[in-house]
């Protein structure tokens, strides 16, 4: 993100040099030195900057009914407003960009990046085309009305209007919304994760004050949650919802990190102690029976693939997962948990989190496939590819270098990174990286069983960057049990008998996997009842 910011600022400043020369309030800049390298982005087809000298004229700025004197530049494409005096009045913060290039306007949690002479700005993650370029001045940038609306309006809930006849800029606070928030808190392996979920993304500001984290709804109000925030946690001491704030009190010395996710909107806090727990700290006893977590793919509004006859993937994955859970529990000495047991939407990271919470020894995500046309048929089993992104691959390599090599078949029992690598926590995106070889081994067994038992076309074991597998801190696979896009397979999948065959194949794969992981087991099939 920082490199994009620096890049964008460089670009905006570069393409703004010419326009800056034409400004009255500004001294003429020097010619750019020749051969300074290719600009990283060509100027977009933007509106032409003002061609003549611009003169500022007095104007009134009215913020929430209070009038202050200001000024405006009347350009051919519309008025331009000086940002430095406006920013504090509207609750924003303006600063120069890295190295003095361009400006960064912070409005709540949103950063707007702009540069002189450029009609392109980034507002949060959006690239915004402005109706006219930003103009530079001695005190700071002059910006068009559209930028005020996109930054202050959307982020801080101001309604902003320009009354040209009276030269009056009017900002009125939008009506306060009442934002409902659901919360969940999980503590695992020295890490407490607090998730605040809202129906839509609120505008917020997050401030850390000592042991307290304050989340302020900008222009909105927080509804009291349906479940009282009674917290019993070693790292989070209190959680409170009050007026426009959510307050989080953490234990002394605790480190708090936060990030946001969309669809649905979630604000996530990770709380941990920077220093690892002292030796001898009691830990919960490991369960006697291994837990296997079965994940029925999709759910709720996320239907997944839809077959030619209208069969929805989410319905069949639930049926298959419920059948598999039942058979595993009856036939193997394991406990089984489902990530969902009804038609409900469930975020992908939550699915892996459920498996982590249960300290599962295996995570199986059940899916049905679709492809181009109707001819594709057969099953395939995936395990995670971290090579799809060099950022993840590099981080995984670093994590791997920090880990001692695991004995074959022992990864399911691997120690958490916290105790072997001096790390405080396992990064979510890398949780699966410690288990790839075991995931591959299990995937091969699943594929073998599906091929031999059912005579399906062997589509093989594959690797792909599937999000649902990333956070799983145990061997994990995603199995595609057939193509819903194929009318014949869709018909077969709708029969109880065929689904039973698929489930039996998966049970055998789990049994063989467990048996292979216990060298003392005399017969790989003995565990099956």
């Amino acid at each position, binding site marked *: 993100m920082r*490199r*994009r910011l620096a*890049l964008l600022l*460089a670009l905006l400043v570069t393409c703004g040099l010419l326009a800056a020369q034409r400004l009255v309030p500004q001294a003429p800049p020097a010619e750019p030195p020749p051969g300074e390298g290719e600009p*990283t*982005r*060509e100027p977009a*087809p933007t509106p032409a900057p003002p061609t003549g000298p611009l003169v500022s004229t007095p104007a009134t700025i009215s913020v929430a009914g209070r009038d202050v004197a200001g000024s405006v530049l009347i350009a051919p494409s519309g008025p331009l407003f000086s940002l430095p005096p406006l920013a504090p009045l509207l609750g924003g913060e303006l600063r120069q960009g890295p190295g003095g290039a361009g400006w960064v306007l912070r409005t709540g949690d949103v950063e707007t990046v702009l540069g002189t002479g450029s009609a392109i700005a980034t507002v949060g*993650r*959006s*690239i915004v085309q402005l109706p006219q370029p930003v103009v530079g001045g001695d005190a700071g940038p002059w910006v068009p009305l559209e930028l005020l609306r996109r930054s202050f309006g959307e982020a801080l809930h101001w309604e902003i209007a320009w009354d040209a006849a009276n030269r009056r800029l009017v900002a009125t606070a939008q009506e306060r919304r009442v934002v409902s928030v659901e919360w969940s808190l999980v503590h695992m392996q020295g890490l407490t994760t607090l998730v605040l979920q809202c129906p839509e993304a609120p505008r917020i500001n997050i401030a850390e004050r000592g042991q307290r984290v304050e989340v302020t709804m900008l222009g909105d109000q927080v509804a009291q949650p349906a479940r009282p925030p009674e917290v019993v946690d070693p790292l989070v001491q209190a959680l409170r919802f009050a007026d426009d704030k959510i307050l989080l009190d953490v234990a002394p010395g605790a480190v708090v990190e936060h990030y946001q*996710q*969309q*669809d649905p909107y979630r604000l996530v806090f990770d709380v941990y102690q920077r220093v690892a727990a002292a030796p001898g700290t009691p830990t919960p006893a490991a369960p006697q029976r291994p837990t296997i977590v079965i994940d029925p*793919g*999709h759910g709720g509004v*996320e*239907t*997944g*693939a*839809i077959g030619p006859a209208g069969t929805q*993937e989410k319905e069949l994955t639930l049926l298959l997962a419920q059948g598999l859970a039942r058979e595993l529990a009856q036939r193997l000495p394991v406990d089984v948990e489902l990530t969902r047991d009804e038609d409900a939407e469930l975020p*992908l*990271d939550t699915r892996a989190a459920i498996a982590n919470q249960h300290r599962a020894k295996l995570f199986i995500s059940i*899916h*049905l*496939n*679709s*492809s*181009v*046309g109707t*001819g*594709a048929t057969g099953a*395939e089993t*995936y395990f995670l*590819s971290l*090579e*799809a*992104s*060099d*950022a*993840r*691959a590099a981080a995984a390599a670093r994590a791997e270098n920090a880990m001692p090599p695991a004995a074959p078949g022992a990864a399911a029992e691997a120690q958490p990174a916290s105790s072997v690598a001096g790390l405080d926590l396992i990064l979510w*995106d890398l949780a699966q990286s410690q288990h790839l070889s075991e995931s591959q081994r299990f995937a091969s067994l699943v594929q073998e069983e599906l091929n031999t038992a059912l005579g399906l076309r062997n*589509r093989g074991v594959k690797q*792909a*960057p*599937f*999000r*649902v597998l*990333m956070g799983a801190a145990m061997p994990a696979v*995603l199995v*595609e049990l057939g*193509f*819903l*896009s194929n009318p014949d397979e869709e018909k077969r999948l709708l029969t109880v008998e065929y689904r039973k065959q698929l489930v039996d194949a998966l049970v055998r794969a789990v049994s063989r996997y467990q048996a292979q992981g216990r060298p003392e087991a005399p017969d790989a099939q003995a565990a099956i009842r």
Partner: protein
Amino acid sequence: MSAPSLGGERRRAGASAVGLAAAGVVLGVAAFAWMGCRGGKEALPGATPPPAGPTEKATVSLLFPGPDGFLHAESREVELPLTADGRVAAVVAALLAGPRTPGLVAPLPAGVTVADAFLDAQGVAYVDLAAKDQPSPPASGSDLELLRVYSFVDSVLANEPRARSVVLLWNGAQRITFAGHIDTSAPLLEDRKWVRQEKAVAAAAPAPRSN
């Protein structure tokens, strides 16, 4: 799930020979007139308008999903913008416009456009796909999603030498997954295992569109 763009195939199957001939004449006349307007040079089709700036003639290799579960290369000689951003946008627009090779399909259904394309200094290409009234990409099984994502990723990386990885956005936002399976929260590298290893099919002559 939105059906892949197979309209061209269905049309071909159902059309009569007379209809095809008539369509061919109309297409031929239209293509002749259009190319005449462009000074005899062929421009990339696509949802975005033709590049306004200077261009150069270049051969691009576009990867389209096929019914065998792989991407297939289709090469064309086209006029490409000189800027990296323009080249990335043009390649994506051409993918969205669809293949000329029978049996292949466009990676996404009609109605999806290139809202923006941007190459940063580290070689990360940002491709913003947009579709009105579609808050998320069409749902599908994982194989189709893989083909869709890597159609864009591998095509952009094959045709823009400065690009090292690709970020796909939808309606201006980067998503955790593209459509429920593939993690798109980090830039994606080229992955040729989704590409059928064969000689690229030259598709110089305009052919019926698949959607």
